[in-house]
């Protein structure tokens, strides 16, 4: 009996630990890169000639595909001595992580709000913050939807709606703004499942769990199981601007600056455009 209880307790303990790792996974990833950096810094001291560095980019989830698949490899070929690691999540979560002292060098946010909040707390290099990209807000439905939703006004035909949590997900803030302008946010909110990042919202719709959702044009372009039915009506939503900036605590300002310069280059911009973004010039 006693043995059985202790076994159960141990299992229980293991479980609670497993639960922890779930939420701190991204933080661990960041810690891991910190260790990497530490290792590389010591190496660097030994051989100062080849200045090898690893920088960590914290990017909004909607940037994941183009940044990880194309831009980072391109940058690393161009600057072989700089290695780029990246972590992707909702901008709000990344903001919290940077506030908590995550070892991030460059922050690519999906909205000005998070960037400004960090800047106000003097965590960003103010001069480094630039508006990089523009995105569109679109309404999506599962591929073979039979709900006949064709515009933002139609959304109340859906039983469940997937939107990002306006408290933490910029895509959710834009969705809220759009629906508020259409004066239906109150009805929408009752049916809404609030995702903690935009990819979650996309997958809920792709699986058909939710009947409709609001995401960025770029996310919509990345998934085959959904269809875009409408763009947010002109004037109903403010421009979706993706700013980028260097974190003040970063010890690799030079490499970070090179990365941001690279993002502005023609070749990088053409990649962004391929993924559905619009360059801010």
């Amino acid at each position, binding site marked *: *009996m006693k043995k059985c209880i202790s076994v*159960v307790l141990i299992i229980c303990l293991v*479980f609670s630990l497993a*639960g922890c790792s779930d939420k701190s996974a991204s933080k661990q990833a960041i810690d891991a890169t910190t260790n990497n950096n530490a290792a590389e810094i010591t190496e660097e001291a030994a051989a100062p000639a080849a200045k090898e560095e690893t920088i960590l980019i914290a990017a909004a989830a909607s940037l994941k595909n183009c940044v990880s698949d194309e831009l980072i490899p391109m940058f690393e070929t161009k600057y072989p001595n700089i290695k780029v690691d990246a972590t992707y999540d909702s901008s709000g979560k990344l903001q919290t992580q940077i506030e908590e002292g995550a070892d991030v060098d460059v922050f690519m946010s999906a909205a000005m709000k998070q960037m400004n909040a960090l800047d106000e707390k003097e965590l960003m290099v103010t001069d480094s913050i630039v508006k990089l990209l523009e995105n569109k807000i679109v309404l999506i439905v599962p591929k073979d939807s039979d709900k006949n939703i064709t515009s933002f006004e139609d959304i109340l035909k859906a039983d469940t709606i997937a939107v990002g949590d306006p408290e933490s997900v910029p895509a959710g803030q834009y969705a809220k703004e759009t629906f508020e302008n259409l004066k239906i946010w109150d009805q929408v909110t009752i049916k809404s*499942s609030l995702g*903690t990042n935009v990819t979650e919202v996309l997958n*809920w719709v792709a*699986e058909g*769990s*939710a009947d409709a959702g609001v995401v960025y044009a770029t996310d919509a372009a990345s998934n085959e199981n959904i269809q875009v039915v409408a763009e947010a009506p002109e004037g109903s939503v403010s421009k979706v601007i993706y700013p980028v900036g260097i974190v003040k605590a970063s010890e690799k300002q030079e490499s970070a600056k090179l990365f941001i310069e690279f993002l502005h280059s023609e070749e990088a911009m053409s990649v962004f455009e391929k993924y559905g973004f619009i360059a801010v010039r």
Partner: protein
Amino acid sequence: MDWSPMLISLKTASLSIIITFFVGIFASRWVVGMKSDKLRIIIDGVLTMPLVLPPTVVGFFILLILGVKRPIGKFLLEFLSVKIVFSWTATVIAAVVVSFPLMYRSARGAFEQVDKTLIMAARTLGMSERSIFWRIMMPIALPGVASGGVLSFARGLGEFGATAMIAGNIANKTRTLPLAIYSEVAAGNMEGAYGYVAVVLIVSFVVLSLMNYFTLKGRKYTKYTNKDEVK
């Protein structure tokens, strides 16, 4: 503070523990009574799986079964117009699946510890297997079974990963305590999270105290039977 996540979590955990408790008992009875060891190992592995798998993987499998584009989910939607995903039922299903192994393991452990001679004695006296189970095994194993039930309840209350995948995060409908905490923290609203976290801490403490209480009772009982054996 918004109380709806607590009510939803409480309702979910309460219904799920009722289901888990009985299904867990019957499953453990079935496995304990198995003749073939090989079969027992396989079935035991399958039943314990949700305990060791990440909850997101459990959610993934539930989605594969019940998602509206999957055979069973599609059937339920088209013929019975029941949509399981993103409903309150989905939170219960997630809680049941994830908390089941704790109940099953505890109950199985408790049943296996029951003194075989008592069961054999009962058989010689012509008692049916069913009444042996309910009138001899169950009372002896009760402390272990009860503590398993308490643990499963706590596990169901804390279920997050699978719930987020199949039930979503709909306020007043499927937003359970863990999801509410997650959303608040994601939004950087630590103050909002404190209240929920306090509730979880209190409930967990009460649950562990209850567990200890059952363990203590169990120990007394073991001593008593030991004394009997010495006689």
